[in-house]
């Protein structure tokens, strides 16, 4: 595996600190294009805004190389300004799955200029006891830019949280899925010679896997790896006893998917990743089979079907102002994927 350290973490920080709400991924797209251009043979931005790049293998001509699609989504959850109330106060809607309980009292940045704003709430002193325990629905909240603040209807807004490193962890608003984007960039920069890499930096994952669907169609790869970040619900059970529904746990390494809400992941690829991790002594975990999903849901069913598996870096507090991941889990995810790419041979997905 190529050296892991500050270079990767600095890039992740840069990617996490820009805002790219589903449908408005330009800020991430810009960074991705800049980073990958020297390392790919071909790159285009498609009709939806996906960045689609190809890096051919370097084996002698005529030898069959597996075309591997590496997918990571550029977008994050956030908000869209939908109406103006006057004096710097704006109504908004959520983009992607956000629990409204995370919104009151948070700082946001609005529009291309990243105008400062806050999501305020009624003072507790003016509430009756019923209000104090009731969720405030989105239409009861506003983004406040200050009395002379200006935004445009249609502007996107995102959490203003800054990336930070704390002990063994990173904290950011958008680990999901900038950590996947940074991973695919790293894989391109250190691409092995035995495979053709079809890198898809996709849009609109958070609102229905829409970028991945057309990206898979464009590439028509032999197989695909969707690289994402998945919730770690590894908190203590309030009543005590063992947490049986943790999904993943921080610190146990990359999470390999077996099944989620939209995909039964290709069992050959699941076994292949497991075998790679075991033989290279890379820690890994299986994500608990269950709901949720990644771009694999759209890729697997594209065209005549594409063998697909997902690998995720676990994070706590999904779709909230601050998520937490372990640096070590990302390092091991990169180690697993670098090792796996090198081992891919056409026979892997030639037959069941």
């Amino acid at each position, binding site marked *: 595996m190529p050296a892991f350290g500050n270079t990767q973490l600095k890039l992740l920080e840069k990617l996490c600190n820009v805002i790219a709400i589903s449908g408005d991924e330009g800020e991430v797209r810009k960074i991705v294009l800049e980073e990958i251009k020297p390392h790919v043979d071909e790159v285009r931005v498609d009709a939806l805004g996906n960045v689609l790049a190809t890096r051919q293998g370097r084996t002698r001509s005529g030898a069959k190389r597996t075309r591997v699609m590496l997918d990571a989504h550029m977008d994050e959850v956030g908000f869209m300004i939908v109406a103006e109330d006057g004096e710097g106060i704006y109504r908004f809607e959520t983009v992607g799955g956000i629990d409204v309980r995370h919104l009151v009292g948070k700082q946001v940045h609005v529009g291309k200029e990243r105008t400062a704003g806050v999501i305020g709430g009624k003072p507790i002193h003016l509430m009756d006891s019923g209000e104090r325990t009731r969720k405030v629905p989105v239409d009861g909240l506003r983004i406040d830019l200050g009395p002379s603040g200006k935004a445009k209807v249609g502007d996107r807004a995102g959490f203003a949280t800054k990336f930070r490193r704390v002990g063994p962890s990173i904290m950011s608003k958008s680990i999901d899925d900038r950590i996947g984007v940074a991973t695919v960039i790293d894989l391109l920069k250190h691409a092995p010679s035995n495979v053709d890499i079809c890198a898809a930096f996709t849009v609109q994952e958070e609102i229905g896997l829409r970028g991945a669907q057309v990206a898979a169609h464009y590439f028509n790869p032999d197989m695909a790896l969707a690289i994402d970040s998945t919730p770690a*619900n590894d908190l*203590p059970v309030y009543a005590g006893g063992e947490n049986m529904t943790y999904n993943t746990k921080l610190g146990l390494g990359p999470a390999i998917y077996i099944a989620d809400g939209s995909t039964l992941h290709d069992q050959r690829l699941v076994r292949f990743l497991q075998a790679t991790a075991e033989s290279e002594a890379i820690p890994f975990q299986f994500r608990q089979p269950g709901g949720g999903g990644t771009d694999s849901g759209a890729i697997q069913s594209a065209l005549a079907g594409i063998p697909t598996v997902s690998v995720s870096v676990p994070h706590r507090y999904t779709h909230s102002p601050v998520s937490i991941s372990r640096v070590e889990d990302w390092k091991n995810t990169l180690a697993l994927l670098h090792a796996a790419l090198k081992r891919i041979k056409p026979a892997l997905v030639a037959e069941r």
Partner: protein
Amino acid sequence: MSDILPFLKSIISVSGVSGYEAPVADLIKDKWRPLVDEVTMSRVGSLHGLKKGTGNAPRPSVMIATHMDAIGLRVSKIVDGFLHITKVGGIDVRVLPGAQVTVHAESGDQLPGVIAMPSAKLLPEGVGNDVLEIGYLLVDTGLIPREVAKKVRVGDLVSFANEPMELAGDVISGHTLDNRASVAALTVCLEELQGKSHIWDVWAVATVQEETSYLGAYTSAFDLRPQIAIAVDGTFAKGPGANGWQTYPIGKGIGLCMGPNMHPFLHKQLRELADKFEIPWFLDVTASHSGTDAYPMQVTAEGIPTALVEFPLRYMHTPVESVSVKDIQRAGRLLAEFIAALEVDFVDTIQWDD
């Protein structure tokens, strides 16, 4: 007028949870030292800045009370490296999930953390999908449990950690503007007084524990025994979710409060001076308890004529409290004009308009 914003930003960037005001007290002390003749600390930690008047001793004195403490949280239990928390002061639990905090660990470390909302599956049946009571929330420091156990103890304080944000139209937003904005207003007043002569002694006081028990205002008023006392605090600004009769527009002027907690004569003086110096103001009324340091000061010792100057504050008791810097300056300026206008026999002229 001096630019108070940098100072205000600095004092809302440090903690000072009720009972533990030292971090902010240090900054205020440094700022006030060149503006007053002496700065001392009360037995319970309030700051007393004395700016001497020009009258003959013994001079009458006016006490201006601005509380420097803030609502916050405290570690109540540690489970697998996660911190259970309890409230210090009137915390609105709805703002907690996803909030950035600092854990002031017993080890001396300032640990960044985030308030976590556990998924419904981990909570007792029926509570997971609503606003969670504070007992269900956890603080995650990003450290592994062994490190947390080494550094953090039950009782350690937790404060909000989001940075101040400047909003368009001269508004500053952040945690703890209730009531650091008043400390800033009082600082403006002291700066204004540098160029003015005043007969009375001025006690600039940054009080402790207003949010929990008014401890600082009670004890400093007793200790200093001023002839009159003025509290400065935030009132409710109009804004999303707050448009009732008790709310006022932000940035359009300061509030002069009347009601049983305020001496009508002082209130009238302040109104007249505000008009005279063209400082925009609005009348705020409070039918009984003002909920500010004015309440304890009025009944200290044999009783003290008390007034209350306010500025509108949006989103009170959230980490994004917002105030107009103009209003802060207006409050500071009115206080300075009031002090400068105090005649040596002012107390004797106080009358009941019966």
